[in-house]
């Protein structure tokens, strides 16, 4: 049923009340430029209205389950409830192990110092929670980058994040510095009885010739209803290399709306890999703007959904200048009555001659009741370009299944092996080994009981 306008306003009201609850504290604790940003954002939120399936960008994703939930919000004051032993244990294991430059853990949007560790950093490298940095004397350094690439117009969730973010991570790698080990960012949600919303913000800046790997993982810490509304900004300067991972493992009742906004400078290379393992409703949006010559962008994704889960991946690559290249490979595995969306938008501006862009989306349907809506959206305004795309939807190959069984593998083992192989096309691209193993393990757990029609 389409919500009426009045209902929408009422639903806005809940989030507006979260903002009002914070306002005084914001004004007193944050620099004026940031307060101004938040006030603009809450205004945009009010103007935007939540998207409905009438909106082209949200046609197959109905956000009613999110906006109908009466979430509580743990504001700037910090966590309102003490954390459980389980949360502490998870804080340590999520995202896998292996060497890291730093590991920052956030619980319901709040930085957890005791679970975080930051090693000694090369000169000029800044890694820490945004709030900690805001308290530091040179907070104005943040001002140059924070929120600068975001477009809030008609973007209710992004606006909400910009108005309400409690905390998040800041990673800045200065000119000519390459960090070899990844920066791990863990965002845990825990409802502890009442539906909880968290708005986290991550800002990654790689200056000229800098290199950095950042892995963000969003996970439900218990089986309560959580909503993580995350925004990640990536700025890659000239020749910079940014390797970014966005993994979502929410519970069956929780929601994740993530926006990754990336901006690539001259000859910069950005790669982003989004893995959606689980969640009632997961929307991952990646927008990359290639705004200088020779910029290169790789977007990969793997999404899994089963039961009545819904997962939506929207990508936009905006080729604004000549000689840019981009490639995308998204694989989806759907079981039960799951629904999924892939929308890959590629814009080639009139200026962007010699662009080379390709896009692939492959879907493996394990059940006849699962559905995928996949759509390439090419908007090409330059004439000397090469853009290709392809999408496939198919079942598990019965020949392959029979072959494996004829070699003694049980049906379930054979199915698991074929699922792993399909997912492996994406997971093999995950460079940090610890993260890759963690994702492979999570995949096995999620699909240990895949249905797959047949005997």
């Amino acid at each position, binding site marked *: 049923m389409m919500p009426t306008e009045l209902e929408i306003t009422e639903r806005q009201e809940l989030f507006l009340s979260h903002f009002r609850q914070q306002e005084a504290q914001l004004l007193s604790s944050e620099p004026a430029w940031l307060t101004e940003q938040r006030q603009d954002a809450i205004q945009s939120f009010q103007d935007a209205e939540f998207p409905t399936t009438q909106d082209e960008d949200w046609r197959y994703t109905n956000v009613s389950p999110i906006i109908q939930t009466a979430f509580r919000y743990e504001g700037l004051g910090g966590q309102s409830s003490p954390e459980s032993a389980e949360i502490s244990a998870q804080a340590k294991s999520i995202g896998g192990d292996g060497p890291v430059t730093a590991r920052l853990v956030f619980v319901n949007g709040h930085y957890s110092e005791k679970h975080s560790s930051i090693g000694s950093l090369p000169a000029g490298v800044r890694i820490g929670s945004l709030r900690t940095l805001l308290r530091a004397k040179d907070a104005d350094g943040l001002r140059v980058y924070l929120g600068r690439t975001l477009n809030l117009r008609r973007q209710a969730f992004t606006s909400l994040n910009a108005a309400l973010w409690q905390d998040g991570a800041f990673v800045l790698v200065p000119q000519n510095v390459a960090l070899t080990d990844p920066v791990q960012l863990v965002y845990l949600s825990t409802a502890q009885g009442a539906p909880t919303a968290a708005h986290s913000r991550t800002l990654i800046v790689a200056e000229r010739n800098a290199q950095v790997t950042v892995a963000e993982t969003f996970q439900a810490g218990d089986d309560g209803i959580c909503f993580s509304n995350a925004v990640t900004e990536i700025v890659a300067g000239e020749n910079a290399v940014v390797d970014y991972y966005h993994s979502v493992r929410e519970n069956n009742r929780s929601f994740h709306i993530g926006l990754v906004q990336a901006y690539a400078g001259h000859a910069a290379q950005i790669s982003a890999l989004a893995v959606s393992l689980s969640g009632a409703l997961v929307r991952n949006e990646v927008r990359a703007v290639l705004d200088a010559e020779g910029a290169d962008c790789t977007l990969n994704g793997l999404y899994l959904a089963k039961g009545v889960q819904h997962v939506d991946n929207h990508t936009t690559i905006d080729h604004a200048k000549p000689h840019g290249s981009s490639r995308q490979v998204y694989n989806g595995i759907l079981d039960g009555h799951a629904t999924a969306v892939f929308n890959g938008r590629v814009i080639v501006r009139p200026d962007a001659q010699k662009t080379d862009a390709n896009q692939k989306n492959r879907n493996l349907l394990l059940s006849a009741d699962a559905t995928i809506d996949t759509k390439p959206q090419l908007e090409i305004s330059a004439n000397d370009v090469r853009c290709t795309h392809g999408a496939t939807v198919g079942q598990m190959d019965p020949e392959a299944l029979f072959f*494996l069984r004829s*070699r*003694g593998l049980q049906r379930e083992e054979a199915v698991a092996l074929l699922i792993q192989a399909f997912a492996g096309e994406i997971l093999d691209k995950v460079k940090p080994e610890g993260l890759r193993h963690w994702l492979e393990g999570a995949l096995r757990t999620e699909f240990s009981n895949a249905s797959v029609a047949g005997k």
Partner: protein
Amino acid sequence: MLSVKNLQVTAGDREILRGLSLEVKAGEVHAIMGPNGSGKSTLAQVLAGRDTYHVTGGSVDFMGKNLLDMKPEERAREGVFLAFQYPVEIPGVSNMYFMRASVNAVRKHRGMPELDAFDFLETAKKKMGLLQMDAAFRERAVNVGFSGGEKKRNEIFQMAMLEPKLAVLDETDSGLDIDALRIVADGVNALRSPERAVIVVTHYQRLLNYIIPDFVHVLLNGRIVRSGGKELALELDEKGYAWLESEAVPA
């Protein structure tokens, strides 16, 4: 070892096997020949448990058990092996990873300890050496990008690893050059023993110079219309199948 009685098989609404009978004893090698479309692969696939075929009549007994009651994996564990006429490509699954899972599934069923990574690799290396397969095939995805002959060799490698009681080779010789044919035949002969049996499906008498059969059968129109010794293969090579047409049940 294997007793097929009056087997009738359909696919879709098509009758393919129309009362096929075959007795195979331990230690024997049987060759099955016959024109295209006569039902040879259907027989092979039905023995391995392919569910696109429907058995509408007859029985198959394998070492005292009803083979038709078993799932494909149970048949494999009991010792039935099919070398596919068209080996399947499995992107993303490495040859060794898959083979180790397969070997250990079969060993476990036979009450043998599982092979650890090291022991498995040693055995695999040895068998690949005998089949003159390059080490690179270990890590490559199963059959992906393999040439026709390489795929066939890979099937024989799998057979060598699994040491089945009954091996059914469906046109394993087609697409092999003369050296490869020898190597594959050696691989099969190495497996021959009084406890094992082999069924080779082939169009060419050539293979039978290397793997000498005890019996040769002609499959025509879904039935075995003639059986004989190895000299029958020579006769077929010379005369083709037309002279046997009258013995087949009309379609």
